[in-house]
């Protein structure tokens, strides 16, 4: 026992002191108390293997051994594991939450990744090589050398109509999506439109029904034949899936009730003036309090405000 205690004391003396490690992190170096990317290599290999399968079968949910992380399940553990499994020292990382670089979730995830990898951090969409996001796809056009990692709270779109996981898996295997279509039909019948604001179900490569994570309907068309690799991680449900570049992605729709986005060209961002972006509403306090609209993607808005060049899809 005494021998073990001595060994431990020697080991701690030889290791980098905790305070020094934190100082290094502040200087842009990673905390050497952790393995690169925090996860052990076996865990990272597990995620990468399952991601390869996910890329090979677009839209198919692949189970993976989701690890415990120092954040709670449901706070982006799936996306975080995908990012940590893929990230390399030369990568440039951007983390956003609902389009915002400065929200609590994004800041904390970014801090964790930066602390355990020491990679360069950016808020510029075009600079980043890996973008981890929650609930949004950045406004600027993503390239084929970038990876977008989306955090997913509920991996299976059939959960709405089939709570039994085994039965839902069978339905995916047989492409038995009748109940989902009935759900959409009833949505139209009851409300006069598809009353789904986010997590709009899409058919990937004409085969698998997929939940595109809670991105708004505005972002759904951007999944179709995109140049970028989209990876989806659901830590709580232990599933990863992917949309490889140039894959057909079609939202469920009817001939007489086509899919529409929630974009309203009459509204514009009060900061940069854009009326072709996804806007979020904020209540402005004051004598005559009112609702105002701002770009959801803060990085894009800042670039426009400071007259920097931005790259958009021509069709939008």
């Amino acid at each position, binding site marked *: 026992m005494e021998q073990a205690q001595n060994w431990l004391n020697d080991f701690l003396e030889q290791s980098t002191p905790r305070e020094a490690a934190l100082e290094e992190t502040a200087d842009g170096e990673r905390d050497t108390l952790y393995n690169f990317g925090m996860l052990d290599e076996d865990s990272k290999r597990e995620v990468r293997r399952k991601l390869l399968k996910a890329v090979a079968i677009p839209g198919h949910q692949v189970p993976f051994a989701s690890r415990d992380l120092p954040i709670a399940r449901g706070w982006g553990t799936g996306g975080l594991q995908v990012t940590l499994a893929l990230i390399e020292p030369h990568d440039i990382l951007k983390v956003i939450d609902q389009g915002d670089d400065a929200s609590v979730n994004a800041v904390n995830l970014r801090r964790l990744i930066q602390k355990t990898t020491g990679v360069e951090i950016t808020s510029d969409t075009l600079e980043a090589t890996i973008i981890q996001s929650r609930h949004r796809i950045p406004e600027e056009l993503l390239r084929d050398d970038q990876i977008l990692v989306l955090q997913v709270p509920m991996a299976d779109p059939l959960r709405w109509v089939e709570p039994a996981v085994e039965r839902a898996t069978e339905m995916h295997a047989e492409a038995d999506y*009748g109940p989902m*279509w009935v759900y959409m039909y*009833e949505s139209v*019948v009851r409300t006069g439109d598809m009353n789904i604001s986010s997590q709009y179900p899409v058919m990937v490569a004409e*085969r698998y029904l997929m939940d595109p994570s809670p991105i708004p309907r505005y972002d759904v068309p951007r999944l179709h034949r995109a140049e970028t690799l989209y990876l989806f991680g659901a830590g709580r449900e232990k599933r990863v899936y992917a949309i490889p570049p140039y894959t057909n992605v079609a939202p469920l729709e*009817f001939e*007489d009730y086509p899919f529409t986005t929630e974009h309203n060209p009459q509204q514009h961002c009060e900061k940069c003036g854009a009326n072709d972006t996804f806007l979020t509403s904020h209540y402005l306090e004051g004598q005559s309090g009112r609702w105002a609209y701002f770009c959801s993607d803060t990085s894009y808005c800042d670039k426009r405000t400071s007259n920097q060049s931005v790259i958009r899809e021509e069709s939008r």
Partner: protein
Amino acid sequence: MNEPMIPASVATKNWVLKANNLTKRYGPGCAYCESLTGPEHNTSRCPVCGTVTACASVNFELDKGEILGIVGESGSGKSTLMQLVHLSLPATNGQLLYKEEPTPPFSILSPGCISPPDGVQSSFLVPPSSVLDLLALDKFARRVFRNRHLGIVHQRPELGLNMNFTVGGNVAEKLLLAEWRNVGQIRQRTAHLMDLTELPPERIDDDPHTFSGGMLQRVQISKALSNNPAVLLLDEVTSGLDLSVQARVLDLIRRIQWELKITMLLVSHDLGVIKQLASRTLVMKNGQVVESGLTDQILEDPQHPYTQLLVSSAL
């Protein structure tokens, strides 16, 4: 697995569906299963290995436009046979052949090749003058076939309907599976079917829980008819209904058969129902067909002792 396509030479008669030695066993089976089970032993369970032979070498031909009745006591294998025909249960052995009139073909093996409807239901097709062994299809092709060519009405509405959807949604499900993608057309077709089955079309968006037992059976019939099935399977459709409702449902089935000329397979333990609807009948006991023939002939001159007992009990 056998080849799904069968040479056309077997298809000379006017049948739609043909079962050859259709067998379903639950258990490993042994050399004594065949000799120690069946009506002569009054059991379906093999005393040696415990295997239950729910259906043993059942043969029948279902002719186009006819109603074939299957009658027997509880545990005789009627419902198992129905599930085998509905392709919802894998068979242990045998063939289930399907023949259909040719219409523009499309592949059954590729989901992307399923053509959308143009107001008239397209068919899941085999090349002209050929026959398909349904039991040799893979799971996906079976599901496609089931959705496009078979309709089923279960004894209990909860088995055939999703009680979380509206009545219209339930009827629409088969249309949506057949690639109907126009809400207006779907609702038009649903309302027409509800009218056909004597349901008030204005209740199309009502919850199934607000419907009576007889009405739910009619909703099931509407759903089963929605894709103009080649074969309609009726599994104890009138059980659990009171006599007046039973009579109305039977009248409805008879009228639909008369008007639409749909081929039907009717399972019942009630000889009265069989007598009213079926032109030919199979009598089953302990997983085997003990007698088959014209319904009137079976009821008036039963040959097998079990059939005689059944007829005398009913009378």
